[in-house]
Structure formats: C-alpha cells, structure tokens
C-alpha cells in the first residue's frame, strides 16, 4: 500500500515539476537525495565522485521534466538514470586507469592514515578491517551484480524494479542476485 502512495506522490510531484513548479523538484530532491547519493557511493566507493554523479542524476531528472510521463514508478526511473550514470563512470574510469578500482591510491592512503591513527584502538581497527573487507567484496562484484545487490540490500527496490532498471527479466534478476550473494559469501563467510 505504501508503495502505491509513494508512487502517486513522487509522480505527482514530478508532474508538477513538468508544469514549472520548482518547489516540487525541491521536495523530490529532499526525498531521494540520500538514497541516490548512497547508492552511487557504494557503486563507486568515493564520496566526491558519488556526489558529482548524483548531481548529474538530478540534473538529468530536471532536464527531462518537460517530457516526463509517469509510465514507471518514479524510483525505478530515478535508479535507472543513477545506474546508467554509475556504470558509465565505472567504464570510463576503467578505460582511464586500466583497472576497475576507483581512486585506489586515495582510498588506500586514507585508510592507511585512519589505520595509523587508530593503531592503539584495537577494536576500531578490527571494525575498519571488517568494513574494508565488505567494501572490497562488493567492489569485486561485476558492476551489474553490484548495482542489483545495492538496490536490493540497501535501497529496498523490489525484483520488478531492479529488473526494469537493469533491463532484465525478474527471473534473471533473481538468479543474478543469488549468484552475487553466493560470491559475497565466498569472500566474507570466513569471518562472518
């Protein structure tokens, strides 16, 4: 039930944006800023890049306002744009750097600093290491599996929505998700 109400609310807001009501855009931004930025952060694992990409997503939403039609759920449309932007960015970075890892130097540098500062606080160290393992396991997933897991695990999209975002059938999404969780288990189960 809630989902239906949310659909109507977002779609209505977007239709008002189409009519030129910028306050409705601000409301949409307020509702979806967090999920979009966080999804992108977990996709590219770099805060500055994720915020830059999120801005591109909302800019594209605003640009598309005049041709917007509420044919799909708003969040599906939004995550379709976000995934598109993220996959393009990952592909471009791969081309530039010749490998998938984003900002490895910066991240490693930051983590080293963090680690050095916390050497005395053993528990925090253990936590850092655990978080880092999760991050690396997610980063190691193929980009499409990663996107599916992030939408399923953290953003609460249902199979139908994830399927629409990734242009697959629902059954394909289900097996893709299971494969992804299986590989995560392969990497993480030893210290769960």
């Amino acid at each position: 039930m809630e989902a239906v109400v949310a659909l109507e609310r977002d779609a209505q807001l977007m239709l008002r944006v189409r009519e030129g009501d910028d306050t409705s855009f601000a409301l949409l931004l307020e509702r979806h800023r967090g999920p979009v930025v966080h999804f992108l952060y977990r996709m590219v694992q770099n805060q500055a890049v994720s915020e830059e990409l999120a801005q591109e997503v909302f800019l594209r939403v605003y640009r598309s306002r005049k041709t917007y039609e509420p044919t799909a759920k708003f969040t599906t449309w939004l995550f379709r744009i976000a995934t598109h932007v993220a996959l393009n960015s990952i592909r471009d970075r791969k081309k530039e750097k010749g490998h998938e890892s984003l900002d490895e130097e910066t991240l490693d540098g930051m983590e080293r600093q963090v680690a050095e500062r916390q050497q005395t606080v053993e528990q925090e160290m253990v936590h850092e290491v655990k978080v880092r393992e999760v991050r690396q396991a997610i980063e190691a997933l193929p980009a499409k599996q990663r996107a599916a897991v992030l939408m399923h695990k953290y953003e609460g999209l249902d199979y139908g929505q994830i399927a629409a975002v990734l242009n697959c059938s629902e059954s394909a999404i289900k097996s893709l998700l299971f494969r992804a969780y299986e590989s995560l288990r392969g990497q993480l189960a030893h210290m769960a």
Partner: protein
Amino acid sequence: MICLGKNQQGADLLTGYLAKTLDAARTAELNQHVQECADCRSLIAVWERLDEFAAPEITPGFDARLYARIAADEMRPSWWRRLLWRPVAPLAAAAAVVAVLALFLRVPGTPDASKQASNVEIEQVAQAVDDLDLLIPIGSDR
C-alpha cells in the same frame, strides 16, 4: 540436509527471505530450513555483515551546488547543452559538422535561414543520440 539454494526456486525464496519480502507461511518454512542448514546461516550472516558498509553523510552545500549547476545548464541553448553532454559530444559534434556543411553547400545565399535550420537539425540529431544513449541496455555486461 540439502540446501534450498541448490535449485532455482529455492534460491529465489532465499533472496526473498533475506530481504524479508516473503509471506508469513513461507518465512516460517524458511526459518525451519535455516535452523538446520549451515550454508543458509552463513548466507544470512554475510547479508547482515553488509550493514557494516555505511555511506557517509552528504556534504553540506550539495543542494546549492546542484541548483547552481541547474541554473548554468538552463542558461545554455539546448542544442549546445546537448553537444556538451559528454557521452554524446563526439557523435553530436560530427553530426553538427555534417549538418552545417550540407547546409552551406545547398543554401549559400541565406545565412540566417541556414543557421536556424542547422540549429534545428543539430538539436534533432543530438536529441536522437541522447535518446539512444538512454536506450543502451544498461544491464549489458560490464
């Protein structure tokens, strides 16, 4: 104990179980299975571990930066904006060159009309390329 995850239907149930989207009867069934299945318990443990991957707070000024970007974007003529759209830029630029050349060759006597026509044409080409860009199956293997 044969794990549910070994067949497609069971695997679907398990992903639903993880996301807590199953009905009460199914959930009870799965609870029973999970108690007896070490594989499933480790899968659940991994699913829970993913909670540790927190995303940072959004930096202050995010909205201000976005609105500045939107304002700058709105100032641009739309065909030029599309030319600057990164993934489309090379194609759109090539299309623009072709369109302008074609118009120069065909209507040399009417510079204003040709400029206007080329803008419309560029806009159409760029729009089409932009649409194509959105249509590329983003799920294609990467």
